[in-house]
């Protein structure tokens, strides 16, 4: 591709607004875009018609397009690009934008808008896209002058992908797409105000390693920031964990940054985290938080959260420091740069850990680990959902496997049980908790990794929210595997109703489910069903082998609950390990208020 990214204002070339969009995408190295055409973006679709080097993936709903772009972005480290029309095109994208904002996913969403002279007139398919998307984007722009368009597009990519990544929207009126103006390249765009801080304060780094060297009960608590910083950060984390010998736990978003097969790995922490991870968080004396944000799913009851620890907090976003939890050593920086400095000072200052204390700490952790908090009672007659995920993991081990999920019990079981070894292989909706994320996300992942095994671990309720995207998978020959843990309930809703609402299962049972196998047929993909433990392995193998999209209906025990669990409003050291302990647990009135 011949592209001159250094075009300056002096040698700017004249293009139409629509041509500028295509040119800017090429100059930004974009190869795939996800979208849906409509009246207000027809000039851009027209300019896209003859273009080589950019593949447009026609999704079936704009929400699907945004989630596909999120999956693409998370699995590649590149921004996901979306093209949708005005009005409903833009409003349908709002869920994906909010999801990407909460989980720090770089998205560039281009929306068509009615012609500038019609804005404010309640024109057909007009909406205040900028007003609607202002709180759910990192930044957004309405481009009223075609001569601003190339600058704005390049700024959009810069803002989406640097600092704390996030979604941006560029709203382009139809007349601006037709008008001619001058195009400048990305190299000649410099933002007036946006300068994210990425270099760590070295004094803070030294303070941090001081605390770490003197720690008696340390823990690494890592998050999605390590993944967003790039594969280098995960490598450096592994080195730091190895050199210190400290235990490591991670948030939902951070899974894969540290290999789950490593003995220093304690599993995920938080509401459905492991006993050893949560107890270690509660009892530690030095907490090293790297790229996580003390989310309420992680902390449990905030005033009882890790009461006796000194806290180090590395985050690229200064607004996360002291937001939920007061910390002792804040480090505002990019994770890769900060980890490099931590390792550098640790080595050059010849730091040593307190080995006897650490050995005693590990002994304590091994005691907790002995509880086997992820264990469950298996069955020979009915498929337990945990068993299904265990078998899925065992039978896909050693392959290049990417996992996406929907939201609910299946998501937590997947996070607990599927062992991730590498970053960027786990795509899930963490912050927003968007049911319907996983199927379109898997399409985005498969588009970026055509030869990989891409599996959406789904629930039968979630998957129906964006089911239409199976058509997209079929159209583009994307052999995604939609592995539906079908318990006929909105499982997590049912679990909370059991625990908090006296077993009154209000509207959480799906009395009319589609036949997913027949549905697969209708979509032109492969339908498989496993109803007993005996047939599970063979069916999973069949799913893996077939090079076509698959809807897998895995019929599981409808009443299984997801444990361990920290109830709402409870601290880390009050975990519930199974149903049998229910009697002992009382959810406080304050706890009931929490989501």
């Amino acid at each position, binding site marked *: 591709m011949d592209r001159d990214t250094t075009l300056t204002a002096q040698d700017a070339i004249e293009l139409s607004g629509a041509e500028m969009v295509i040119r800017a995408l090429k100059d930004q190295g974009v190869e795939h875009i996800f979208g849906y055409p409509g009246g207000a973006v027809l000039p851009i679709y027209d300019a896209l018609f003859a273009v080589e080097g950019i593949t447009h993936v026609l999704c079936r709903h704009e929400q699907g397009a945004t989630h596909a772009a999120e999956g693409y972005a998370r699995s590649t480290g590149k921004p996901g690009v979306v093209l949708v029309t005005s009005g409903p095109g833009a409003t349908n994208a709002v869920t994906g934008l909010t999801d990407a904002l909460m989980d720090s996913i770089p998205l560039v969403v281009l929306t068509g808008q009615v012609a500038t002279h019609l804005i404010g007139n309640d024109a057909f398919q007009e909406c205040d896209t900028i*007003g609607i998307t*202002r709180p759910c984007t990192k930044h957004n722009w309405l481009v009223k002058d075609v001569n601003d368009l190339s600058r704005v597009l390049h700024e959009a990519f810069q803002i989406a992908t640097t600092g704390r990544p996030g979604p941006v929207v560029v709203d382009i009126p139809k007349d601006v797409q037709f008008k001619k103006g001058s195009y400048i390249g990305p190299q000649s765009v410099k933002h007036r*105000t946006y300068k994210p801080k990425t270099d760590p304060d070295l004094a803070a780094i030294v303070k941090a390693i001081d605390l770490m060297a003197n720690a008696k009960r340390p823990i690494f608590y890592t998050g999605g920031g390590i993944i967003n910083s790039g594969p280098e950060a995960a490598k450096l984390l592994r080195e730091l964990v190895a050199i210190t010998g400290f235990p490591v736990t991670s948030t939902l978003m951070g899974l894969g940054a540290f290999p789950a097969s490593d003995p220093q790995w304690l599993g995920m922490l938080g509401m459905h985290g492991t006993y050893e991870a949560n107890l270690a968080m509660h009892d530690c004396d030095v907490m090293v938080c790297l790229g996580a944000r003390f989310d309420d799913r992680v902390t449990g009851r*905030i005033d009882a959260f890790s009461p006796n620890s000194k*806290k180090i907090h590395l985050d690229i976003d200064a607004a996360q420091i*002291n937001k939920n939890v007061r910390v002792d050593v804040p480090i505002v920086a990019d994770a890769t740069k900060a980890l490099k400095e931590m390792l550098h000072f640790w080595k050059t200052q010849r730091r040593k850990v307190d080995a006897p204390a650490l050995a005693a700490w590990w002994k304590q952790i091994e005691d907790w680990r002995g509880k086997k908090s992820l264990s469950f009672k298996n069955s020979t007659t009915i498929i337990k959902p945990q068993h299904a995920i265990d078998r899925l993991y065992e039978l896909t081990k050693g392959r290049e496997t990417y996992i996406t999920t929907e939201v609910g019990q299946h998501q937590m079981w997947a996070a607990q049980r599927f062992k991730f070894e590498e970053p960027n292989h786990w795509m899930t909706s963490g912050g927003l908790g968007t049911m319907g994320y996983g199927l379109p996300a898997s399409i985005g992942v498969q588009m970026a990794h055509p030869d990989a095994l891409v599996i959406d671990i789904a629930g039968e309720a979630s998957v129906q929210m964006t089911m239409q995207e199976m058509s997209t998978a079929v159209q583009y020959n994307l052999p995604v595997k939609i592995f539906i843990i079908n318990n006929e309930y909105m499982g997590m809703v049912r679990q909370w109703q059991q625990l908090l609402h006296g077993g009154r299962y209000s509207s959480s049972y799906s009395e009319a489910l589609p036949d997913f196998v027949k549905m697969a047929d209708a979509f032109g993909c492969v339908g498989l069903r496993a109803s007993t433990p005996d047939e599970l392995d063979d069916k999973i193998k069949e799913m893996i082998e077939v090079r076509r999209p698959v809807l897998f209906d895995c019929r599981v025990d409808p009443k299984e609950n997801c444990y361990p669990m920290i109830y709402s409003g409870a601290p880390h050291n009050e975990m519930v390990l199974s149903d049998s302990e229910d009697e002992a647990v009382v959810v406080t009135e304050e706890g009931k208020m929490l989501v």
Partner: protein
Amino acid sequence: MNMQIKTPQQSHTIAILVDNEAGVLARVVGLFSGRGYNIESLTVAEVDHAKRTSRITIVTSGTPEVIEQIEAQIKRLVPVHRVVNWTIAKPGIEREMALVKVVGHGDKRSEAMRIAEIFRARIIDTGHTSFVFEITGAPQKVDNFLDLMRPLGLVDVSRTGVAAISRGPEAM
């Protein structure tokens, strides 16, 4: 450490220098409403036409933790150049202007004029039964003036909100 100690709410005056682009005020105001922060007063105008910068002055209230969070959240907004808290970071001077309409006859009318003189308020419009006063000062002074005018026939008030600047030679 993590205990959410009930610390008293305190009023803070925060100045924000922003690029004067479309919707920038909505971003700042939306941040306050979206995250549940208070706005007690807000003033905005372009301050440098050539550089296209505007200055927003917001009086807000909250615990020290909330104020720290407000400042950090404002700094995340892309078109923001600088954020200064005049209540903490630097000693600032605050002024507010109000236009105050008072309607009355006889003694009340002359009393209103007498108090206006004490407050150094200017009369910028008058008829046989009404005055419009222009008063400038710290917000508390304006409050006091309004309290005194209320029994004397106060019918209408328009306040600008607080403008603030630092003492000494330094710019924001």
